[in-house]
């Protein structure tokens, strides 16, 4: 492999890191991951895409990285669920301290993981329903219904 290729890839990765790392980390945190886990997930995503980064269109890179992040997160959650650790890492536990200062944030943390993910991806990441469905591995209809239920529960909680 030519050194120019190595340099280009490294530069591309660095540029992608500068542009997208913070946003991906905020996405993971919004999805309820503890800070350390969120960092691990996003950093692993950059390691995974490093070898192929020059083959990805710059305009599609954010989407590619987001998909990688969601896959890694899904894999990790699956592994944790298998060994029974996920129950102790409920997202609502994670956000309770912060949530005292904001009913909406607390309510978001109390939502089931799928509903929370739908709302975060749909309204925080501003993704179309089709893309949210692809990322979560469900139908567009499920995204619609989960988002609807999620919003309804948020409304109930914050207006209680």
């Amino acid at each position, binding site marked *: *492999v*030519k*050194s*120019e*290729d*190595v*340099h*280009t*890839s*490294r*530069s591309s*990765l*660095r*540029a992608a*890191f*500068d*542009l997208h*790392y*913070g946003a991906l*980390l*905020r996405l993971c*945190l*919004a999805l309820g991951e503890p*800070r*350390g886990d969120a*960092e*691990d997930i*996003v*950093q*692993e995503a*950059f*390691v*995974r895409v*490093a*070898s192929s*980064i*020059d083959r990805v269109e*710059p305009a599609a890179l954010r989407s590619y990285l987001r998909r990688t992040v969601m896959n890694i997160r899904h894999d990790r959650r699956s592994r944790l669920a298998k060994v029974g650790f996920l129950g102790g890492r409920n997202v609502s536990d994670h*956000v309770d301290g*912060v*949530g005292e*200062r*904001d009913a*909406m*944030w607390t309510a*978001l943390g109390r939502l089931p993981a799928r509903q929370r993910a739908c*709302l*975060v991806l749909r*309204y*925080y990441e501003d993704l179309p329903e089709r893309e949210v469905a692809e990322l979560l591995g469900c139908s567009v209809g499920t995204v619609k219904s989960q988002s609807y239920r999620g*919003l309804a529960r*948020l*409304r109930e909680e*914050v207006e209680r």
Partner: protein
Amino acid sequence: MKLEDRLRAAIDTHVEDVAADEAAWARITGQLARSAHAPGHGGRRRLVAAVVAFALFGAAAGLLWRSFAGERRPVADHPDQTVIPTPSSPLTSRALRSVGQVPRHSLAVLGTSDGSLLVASFTGRQLLLVDPSDARVLAQRDLGGAGTIGAEETSGVLWVLQGGDTPRLIRLDPTTLAITGMRSFTSVADGLAAGGGHLWMGAEGSLTELDPITGATTRTVSLGGNVELLAGDPSSGRLYVTLDGPVRHNSSPLLEVDATNGAVLAHTRAGQADLAGVSHLAATPDGVWVAEATGMMGILSFYTAEGLHASKALPEGRDGLGLVYGTNAIAGSYVGGHLFVANPGGDATCRNPRTGKRLGRVSPVNPSTDPRFVGVAGRPMIVMGSTLYVVDVGIAC
């Protein structure tokens, strides 16, 4: 306000103030260097061999451990990470005074010759010129493009380098941010530095000298490797450059270059190439501070000008010896005659720029806000998250 908007606002408020920081980059590059995913260093065979070797080693170590130690002790998660609570309000410190708000997670900050502060936004596409006394915006310019990766001022001209596939060098008026010129490059550009009134840009395999008034290429110096980091000291006219190769003895080349003619004055090796290598350079009149991420901790070492000799050990306990230890990556900034070190472990100190001796503490810092020191009219300031602070040197140093 609609519920969806309230939801966005709640997430924005509560998601931690995070940015692309050098510690995270160091972990990524360190992991890449150790794995077969590394761009250009990959190879399925090497990966398989590494996995098999690791598995065999792990099995053998496990058997030995169980034989001799009995019950395994629990191991803390991520022992190299120090968890620092994110402050919800501006930090308070005797040595710091909050000035106001600037765009958070700026990609570049620069003190201009007329005493203003230039701030590039998080995406690097927007530039702001702010008054350092109250953070009032004096001028603003949307540049578009791939984002700012460097900014320098020479001869009353402000230069901004944008990265991406086709890097752009943009010439601006330093008082109004009006664009007065622009040129594009077809190859990768890495860093912009000024030294002795000369302007240099890092490029693939070379350093390019640019006319400080017109931006035209006036000289190209081949270096035998691609520029990774570039820093210049205006007073001494020295540039310091790290290259991505050739890597020998597990370290990367560090060069001292005369900014007036591009002559390489000295070269040595620094950083641990199989980990993250050199992560940051801070040029001073007497030499350069080199930050290395070692995977478990960051080390800041001093190399003298005129020879790049590594500094001798100084007796100050673990925090002396010419080294500054921190958690993973660490960064030093030379501002107003002092060396400021922001440790991602959550501490910022003021140090003697020749010896590294600690003179005082600036503040506890929030590492997730990527604290950046910058000199404005000779006065040290620090940008943390979206807050601009002025440092009281009398207290901090």
